[in-house]
């Protein structure tokens, strides 16, 4: 099969993805589970509602780069809701709302150490609350991904790649991993949230590939990619069909980058096989990345 055919197959894949693309919003899924968690804890509901609504308004302002507006909202909330006077699970619940948003604000202000500390504090709370609602595990996963983003902003790409490796191995292969004393592993109850899991894997993959694509130094890029998949048994395709696509894609990239093999029939066949697997939530970033590598 000629190289042209490879590109034809890639283009076909890209078209399929665009036609079938499921856009996702993780907001609603998390909100539902967060509400369930909140309902299981004894707390001042009206006060919490006020706190929750306004913290999320601050988050929206921050996402629009209106950091001063976000800070103003938080100044107000913190005056009206005296968190320090709360205790026990109620206080933890409020902090579970405030810590990640404060972490994001610090991230926007480029105070990366403060952002990292707040994110780790969030994960500690997530770990605590997983016992009450297993879905909170995904919030912890999201925080770990945030740490990888912080590491990139601090030019600590190797650490970021290692975190991506943790995320992939935990989510796709149900490995038990740990980070900073916090444990990550998918229990049976967590695996029941298959859609949420699929969403997270896809989102992490899409973003990581985009990050790699922006690295000019090929040697460094290849090193980071290798580290990010070092624990993944890519030849083991005995996984849910949901993850076959990503493993195949990673395998193709690995063959090109590490094996430097773009003519092997297996690679060509693999690209052809991509067409047959579930591609929900993926965008075409990785395919365009593969095209670039082949060029």
């Amino acid at each position: 099969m000629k190289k042209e055919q490879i590109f034809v197959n890639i283009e076909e894949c890209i078209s399929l993805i665009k036609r079938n693309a499921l856009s996702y919003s993780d907001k609603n899924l998390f909100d539902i589970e967060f509400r369930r968690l909140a309902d299981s804890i004894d707390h001042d509901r009206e006060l919490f509602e006020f706190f929750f609504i306004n913290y999320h308004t601050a988050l929206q302002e921050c996402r629009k780069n209106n950091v001063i507006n976000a800070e103003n909202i938080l100044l107000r909330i913190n005056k009206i809701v005296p968190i320090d006077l709360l205790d026990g699970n109620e206080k933890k619940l409020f902090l579970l709302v405030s810590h990640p948003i404060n972490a994001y604000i610090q991230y926007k202000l480029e105070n990366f150490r403060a952002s990292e500390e707040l994110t780790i504090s969030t994960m500690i709370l997530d770990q605590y609350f997983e016992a009450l609602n297993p879905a909170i595990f995904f919030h912890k996963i999201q925080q770990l991904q945030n740490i990888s983003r912080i590491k990139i902003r601090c030019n600590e790409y190797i650490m970021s790649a290692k975190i991506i490796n943790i995320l992939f191995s935990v989510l796709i292969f149900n490995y038990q991993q740990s980070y900073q004393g916090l444990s990550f592993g998918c229990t049976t109850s967590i695996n029941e949230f298959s859609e949420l899991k699929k969403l997270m894997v896809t989102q992490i993959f899409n973003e990581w590939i985009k990050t790699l694509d922006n690295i000019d130094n090929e040697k460094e890029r290849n090193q980071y990619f290798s580290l990010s998949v070092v624990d993944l048994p890519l030849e083991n395709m005995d996984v849910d069909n949901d993850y076959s696509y990503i493993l195949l894609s990673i395998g193709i990239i690995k063959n090109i980058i590490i094996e430097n093999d773009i003519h092997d029939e297996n690679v060509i066949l693999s690209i052809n096989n991509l067409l047959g697997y579930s591609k929900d939530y993926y965008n075409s970033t990785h395919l365009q990345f593969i095209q670039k590598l082949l060029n």
Partner: protein
Amino acid sequence: MNYKLSQYIVTVEVKENIFIVFSTRTSKQVLLYKESYDKLFNGKFKEIEKDIFNILVSDYILVPENEDELASIVEENNHSNHNSKALYQVIMPSANCQLGCGYCGQKHTKNQLDTSYYSKLIERINHKLDTENYESLSIAWFGGEPLMSLSTLRELSKKLQQVSVEKNVKYVAKIVTNGLGLKKNIFLDLVNNHKIKSFEVTLDGIKSFHDERRFLKSGEKSFQIIFDNLKDIFMLPNFDELNVNISIRCNVDSSNYEGVTPLIKLMSEHGFQDKISGFYVAPIHSWGNEAHLQSLEKEIFSEKEIDWLIDQYKYGFRPGLLPGRVYQVCMVTTPSSELIDANGDIYNCTEVSYVPSYGEQYRLGNIKDINPTVTFNDRPFENWNDLVLENKSSSPCHTCIMMPVCGGACPKSWKEGNIACPSNKFNISEKLALNYLIQEQGIEYIS
């Protein structure tokens, strides 16, 4: 938690049984049907549907019962003023101006900012950039007429750009100019070499009105020169790619208000609606003189402003209608913001330099005399927000519901006994209704 209805709201019935509730604290508006509206205004908050309730809370229409709203507003303003990421510096390279506008309070001279002051100014800016974690250096070229000392502008601009590179901050520049000297080659030089991306030019109505008051000191007319300069600039083949904002301001009083609509029409005939970033009308105010005595009554101005906004839509312009939240009323409340005029005098207000009636009243110092690292204490009006909170501002701002979207407008004006309320105070309801009509029915409906 118990809630109360915010005092900082404006409500308009835009259609039968349909209401807009606008929060000046957030500049957000909510559309309510009568049922929800009645519950809101009858205090039956808990009966409001949850999703609507949450929006009312997040938009600050419903606020905690025990919240001191004005204190919150002032705290937000102070936080924004003291944590600004932009170091703002106004520079007046020239004390001169070709025009002899009747309402101008400045006394013009041929002075230009002396070259011997440059290094001290740069040193001062460097020092300020070192003291806080600024993201940008924002320069405003003002006057007099800044283009009357183009050499000063050019030389200082290069030094300032160099400072921004050394300090790793973004460089942003704008200019307020009468437009007489804004030939297209000058414009291109300012944009390409001096990073000026925002221009404000004044036209006080069409020619017959503008030339009655904005004439050269030699007696010659200025309108056509300025208008032709703008036309030439807009016709530059790469104008759109330059990504420059040019806004046109029209100063209005009782003698020229009838020239506004014809000006809008004229600009439209020359395609300005596709080129300018905005057109706005400003009432003439006191500039240390009695110019304000010729102004329209505020209520009349505000009524006419609605007509002018509709005219703008009719002629293809797209003006913004609703005010945004104002955290910084002007440069006076930001401790780091300063103005240096062509004499080297330093102020924290753009309205006082070269104005004889103010004497030394507002002068902070002169660049040649001060240590560049000095911090001026007792800057006029720096505590404006606190004065409003304490009801010591000589203004009605303490209880005014428009305070969050106005900030008090002009502290100096209040001190001088002049009412500084902007038009929104008088026509916000009409603006809300107009905005609703445009959203719901389209622009054609009001055209």
